[in-house]
């Protein structure tokens, strides 16, 4: 009996969190005049909503821009983050603790203080209306650095010493010993950065005006509130599906890693 109550509650929860997406998917394939219906079924299925999206906005270039920006940022964060994390965890140098505390402190700075001055800096560099302006300011990430450092700390120093005696450079040790042993941490940090970046909308709205350089969230947002969708709901939902789909597919494949990754950011705070 208790079990039945628990399952009922679990199913109600699943409906609350998943049904809106299922409805959204189905409605994006409905004729516009049937979207008001509550049912998931349509009298006929149509690509008209998607057609309007493809005809009105350069969604394909937005998709490409999103992929370029997300991958560039994630790659840079992991690369420079592991260099820094290795230095902070396995190498000894004067001032190391001070630098580490400084980096911890930067995590407490709310992004809204930086919003305006960072924007004016990007303007000064001439990076507005350029993907560089979306990539370079976010190439380093303290959260990723901490995740990597935590993992590097668990690698026995004796292992690294042995490699050093054999004449390995620190760079080669990082590449051939530390990275292969830290794949879960690299995935964890990568997932956090990739998701945040794929969904980032506020910064692109500030920096990008040229439609050809917009990323997916900004393009879809502008299409929705800027009148491109001609106040029709179907195309808005279709554009939303196109924005959500890649990250949802990756999520469903790697859901275990996603959940533990994101939880790890909260558990440390």
């Amino acid at each position, binding site marked *: 009996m208790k079990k039945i109550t*628990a399952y009922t509650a*679990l199913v109600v*929860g*699943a409906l609350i969190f998943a049904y*809106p*997406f299922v*409805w*959204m998917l189905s*409605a994006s394939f409905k004729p516009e005049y049937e979207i*008001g219906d509550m049912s998931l079924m349509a009298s006929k299925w149509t690509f008209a909503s998607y057609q309007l999206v493809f005809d009105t906005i350069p969604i394909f270039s937005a998709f490409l821009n999103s992929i370029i920006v997300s991958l560039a940022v994630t790659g840079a964060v992991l690369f*420079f983050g592991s*260099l820094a994390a290795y*230095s*902070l965890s396995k*190498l*000894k*140098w004067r001032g190391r603790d001070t*630098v580490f505390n*400084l*980096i911890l402190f930067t995590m407490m700075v*709310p992004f*809204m*203080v*930086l*919003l*305006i*001055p*960072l924007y*004016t*800096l990007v303007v000064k560099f001439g990076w507005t209306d350029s993907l560089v302006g979306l990539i*370079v300011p976010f*190439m*380093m990430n303290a959260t990723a*650095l901490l995740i990597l450092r935590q993992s590097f700390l668990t690698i026995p120093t004796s292992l690294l010493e042995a490699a050093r005696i054999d004449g390995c*450079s*620190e*760079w*080669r040790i990082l590449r051939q010993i530390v990275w292969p042993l830290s794949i879960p941490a690299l995935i964890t940090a990568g997932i956090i950065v990739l998701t945040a970046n*794929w969904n980032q*909308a*506020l910064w692109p709205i500030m920096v990008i005006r040229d439609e050809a350089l917009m990323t*997916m969230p900004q393009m879809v947002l502008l299409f*929705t*509130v800027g009148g491109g969708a001609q106040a029709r*709901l179907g195309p*808005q939902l279709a*554009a*939303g*599906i196109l*924005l959500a789909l890649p*990250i*949802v597919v990756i999520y*469903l494949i790697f*859901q275990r890693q*996603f*959940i533990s990754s*994101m*939880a790890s950011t*909260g558990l440390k*705070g």
Partner: protein
Amino acid sequence: MGQVINNIFARSFRSLSRGRNVSGYLMIAPYLLHLVIFLGYPLVFAFVLVFHRWDIITPMEFAGLKNLTRLIHDDLFFKALLNTGFFLSIHIPLQIITALFFADLLNKKLKGQDFFRTIYFLPVVVSGVVVAILFSQLFAFENGYINGIITALGGERVPWLVSPQWAMPSIAIIVTWKNVGFYIILFLAGMQNIPASLYEVASLEGATTWQRWTRVTIPLLNPTMVTVIVLSTIGGFSLFIEPYMLTGGGPLNSTLSAVLYIYNQAFYFNHMGYAAALGFAFACIIFTIVFLQKRFVTKDMYS
């Protein structure tokens, strides 16, 4: 290509590094350089901007304390603060109760719990833009899905996003719906750290379900509770996409959030200096609140 880069790195490390000291500096250098340019400099510049008038096109003009006196007399600044407070007063309790409820269900170790966990977490990974599109329909006044259900059950339509009273609670519901999966996982992790022996003792002593919650689960979840409250508070101050897309800050500025107000001052009115001052002020307020929460909530629970 990769090989070439590797060789360059290996050579520069070998030639420059006499001992690990130098390698250490070399490897942290890119990160620190970036930190100085994209965090240190903007932070200093934000402070400079607070004392200047600037529309980003004409040269900066020293304004002394004008931005700060203006802030004190700015009704919209206080409105945004009040709105954030109102948002948090609904969002935080709603989020904690919902998250505790589902975390407890998932902690019963029933079959299929991984499936449910995956579903509850789904809105967390989806862009806020998608969530806003979705809820603009679900919360629509005339043909919205939720008002459809309410009228079908014989109720009155709720003016979700169109009335000043309902708009902010609606946004709090939307944000809770989007984020609660994350907090379910945090509470679940916290619950799994509570020793089962404590519950055994409680049931031996004849504790009711309510007592198990108030005497064992909630006190022992205190560290998670602090995290949830702090993260939700920071999230509340960063609220932007939902009001920007769904209400534009209206009706009657009832959903004007801190970041939305900064954005409007900077990009709608071109008041860069004042926008920077606003950013500073809000950041100081967040700092103070989070500091108090960490002290107050932690202490209160253990006394």
